[in-house]
């Protein structure tokens, strides 16, 4: 009899412990979720490893260069400034999420478009990320920026800081943005500010100098 009681107590205690573990330990979803830090254009989003700022957003059918690159839909070009504070860092995860939570990966097809940034500590890095997207992806588009490249199970940035930056595109603006025809010139990514006088491809440089 006493043994029966002891066994029952043991089983109940084991179940209680199990419940404590499932309630208080990060399991399943919580164990995999990244830490999302949100922001908007021209706001600096502070991540553990870097500060990310979106400084410009362009929608265009054509990225200038030699050869120029035409979009299947439209190019959404996101200009960023990133600085690593603590240690040299590689950020390889730049992707876009639209209002329906669909994801769009960055394209390397446009001249000077990049999909990753290698950051030296303390040196501001400029990079333009280009997405070739359909019209319905413009509304509510957000840039996600993190260290691990995006993959289908998001395992590369689990439990890591991810910047989610609202690009400020409202549903009412989509038609006007889609109709824009002006080509966009993308500056080379790297440590030199795009509008700095010693930028390798200053605006007044002849086209051949860019190659």
């Amino acid at each position, binding site marked *: 009899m006493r043994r029966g009681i002891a066994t029952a107590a043991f089983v109940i205690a084991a179940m209680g412990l199990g419940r404590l573990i499932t309630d208080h330990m990060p399991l399943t979803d919580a164990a995999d979720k990244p830490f999302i830090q949100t922001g908007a254009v021209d706001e600096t989003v502070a991540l553990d490893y870097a500060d990310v700022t979106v400084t410009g957003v362009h929608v265009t059918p054509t990225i200038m260069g030699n050869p120029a690159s035409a979009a299947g839909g439209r190019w959404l070009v996101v200009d960023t400034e990133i600085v690593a504070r603590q240690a*040299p860092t590689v950020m390889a995860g730049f992707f876009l999420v639209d209002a329906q939570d669909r994801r769009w990966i960055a394209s390397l097809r446009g001249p000077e478009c990049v999909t990753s940034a290698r950051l030296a500590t303390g040196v501001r890095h400029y990079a333009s990320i280009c997405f070739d997207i359909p019209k319905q992806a413009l509304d509510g588009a957000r840039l996600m920026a993190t260290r691990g490249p995006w993959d289908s199970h998001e395992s590369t940035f689990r439990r890591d800081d991810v910047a989610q930056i609202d690009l400020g595109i409202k549903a009412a603006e989509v038609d006007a943005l889609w109709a824009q025809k002006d080509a966009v010139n993308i500056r080379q990514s790297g*440590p*030199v500010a795009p509008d700095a006088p010693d930028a390798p491809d200053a605006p007044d440089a002849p086209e051949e100098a860019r190659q």
Partner: protein
Amino acid sequence: MSAANDNRPSRWWIAAVPVAIVTMLLANGFRVPVFWYQSGQHREIASGDANEWVSVTEETSDAHGDLTRKYDVRFAGLGGAETAYESRAGEFTLPEGMVARSVKLDFRAEPDQVLKHCAVTLIDDEGREYRVGHVEDDLGAKITVCVPEETPGPSAPIVDAETRGTLPPEEQPRPSEWSASPAIAVPADARFVEVRISFENPDYVRIRLLS
């Protein structure tokens, strides 16, 4: 309960529990070496103070198997306060408040030792790391960070057909003693406490700068 001795419940599981726990930890434990230990500087293989010779013996491997890399290194001081620095696209001016400091290092090694592709890291009193020469670094010198540019010595064989210690035709052997002074972009007012020399994660050599 007297008859219970003949068919009491099995208790082998009590012994199996610790075995199962250890097996589970071991099965998951591969993450520690793969994702943490081997992906950063975690093993100090030698250390010393500034201005004293530090003898280093490092286990490494090439196409022919395991070998040891042997060299002596001495930190002789920090110099320079250039504002010009190298990027992939050429020279650029560092942002205000940052300078390129040269790390003066003296080396002694047999001419057959493979000493290309070293990374030099400066660590300041806030724990910030500034690095040059690592494969992921876009800024600064590459490959010949720790060796003379004209006579860098042999490369590690990456296929069986290559022999260890061979030099390209017309390249002179490396002298047995030389100095290198790679430049690293750092804040002008940073106080450095440590310099690290590393070839492969997780190994590094630590030289203390302030005592």
